[in-house]
């Protein structure tokens, strides 16, 4: 890539910091050039976020249909999977999987619910009603 071809499409990162890119100058020698971002990359990121939004919506619907507990909704909302959620709550993965079932969730003690509530930054009532507390 030539220095003058380094993309300068302002993206999310570009608003915070420019990126260093390696590119060649007129004589073919490598040098660095700051970049504001690249459209191709921005849309790749947008695609991923669009997928996240869809997963959150699908999770919400599953909870409303009583096919999953609200933990599924908050897990998707937090871009987590079972492994990550187990890590942050301190539960085992098989426990988290059980807690994703509505019946099991409804019988959880407040102590256990509190662990989830803390990770998701909500209160226990909000956890049960899928009320999001934006930071």
């Amino acid at each position, binding site marked *: 890539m030539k220095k003058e071809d380094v993309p300068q499409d302002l993206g999310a990162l570009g608003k915070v910091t420019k990126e260093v890119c*390696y590119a060649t100058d007129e004589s073919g020698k490598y040098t660095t050039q700051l970049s504001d971002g690249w459209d191709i990359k921005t849309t790749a990121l947008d695609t991923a976020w669009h*997928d996240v939004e869809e997963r959150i919506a699908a999770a919400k619907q599953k909870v409303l249909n009583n096919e999953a507990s609200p933990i599924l909704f908050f897990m998707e909302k937090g871009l987590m999977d079972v492994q990550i959620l187990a*890590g942050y709550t301190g539960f085992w993965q098989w426990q988290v999987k059980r807690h994703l079932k509505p019946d099991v969730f409804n019988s959880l003690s407040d102590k256990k619910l509190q662990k989830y509530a803390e990770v998701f930054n909500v209160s226990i009532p909000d956890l049960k009603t899928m009320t999001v507390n934006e930071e």
Partner: protein
Amino acid sequence: MLTTTLPFKHIQAAHCENGVTMSLLKNAGVQQITEPLAFGIGAGLFFVYIPLLKINNGPVIAFRTLPGLIFKRTCKALNIPVVRKKFRSKEAAEQFLNECLAAGHPVGCQVGVYYLPYFPKEYRFHFNAHNLIVYGIEDGNYMVSDPVMEHTNILTGYELERVRFAKGALAPNGQLYYPKENTVVTDDQVKRAIKSGIEKNVRNMLTMAGPITGVNGIRYTGNRIKKWRDNLGLKKAGLYLAQLVRMQEEIGTGGGGFRYIYGAFLQEAHGYIPNDDLLEISQTFTASGDLWRTAAVQAAGIYKGRIGSQEDFNIMGDYLLEIAEIEKKAFIALKNIKWQ
């Protein structure tokens, strides 16, 4: 309360681990070190596609070696002893960090980016292989040099603890590392390190490579992509391609999946080992990086929904097959270089 700010020069780099390696070594007296040298000596160039392992709901695709290896290999090649520690307890992790600072060592830390406050929200996925340097503490706040950022940042004790103990795949467990002592490295040592770095990279990309790693992995991925449309459906195939592009880009590779940095490394290597083959092979890596970018544009056409026929997937797959051939040639040429 402990207050220390070490004399430390923040240098922005294209990639976090290269940047941390470069800055820590420079700070420890290795004057010659640059980002491309750290990347090349650390044999950073790689490719792996693991279809069965999923990260962020897409396949695992990486364009560089496992996190931590660049620093480890570069220090080893330059004969620099390293301190590296992981922790169970957050308190012990913080205490050890403070002791390092008090002893005058800026420290590299592995962190997760999900809770990293100065990162733009759009980038904050659960990615745990980010690296930054802590170089000071003041009133319980830490001075942070993150190599991908233009400027330094400040994190509170809690914020730093949270990212050092991020959870999930590749959880950092508070891992920190730094060169044990200051050292002066001779040009001759750099020369030898460059050779061993190139030899290691040749092995990783050509001979040691199984079917899903190195140039074989690129070819394998190219062939798989041609089947993605039928096997996954257009939507999921698009998501997978977006994942490929995001990994290729990570932050600051200019779209070439680290190939440009490797090209720059070979040019710098020529300064130490004046063999003109190095310059020629550098151009081959530039060509490979350019083709990775062209492939990314094709991929974007698909995940934006502008194109999406089987033919479009075939073109995408063929780009990777072509790249695999180019890189194979380049690494064979590196393998056959006659070192004086």
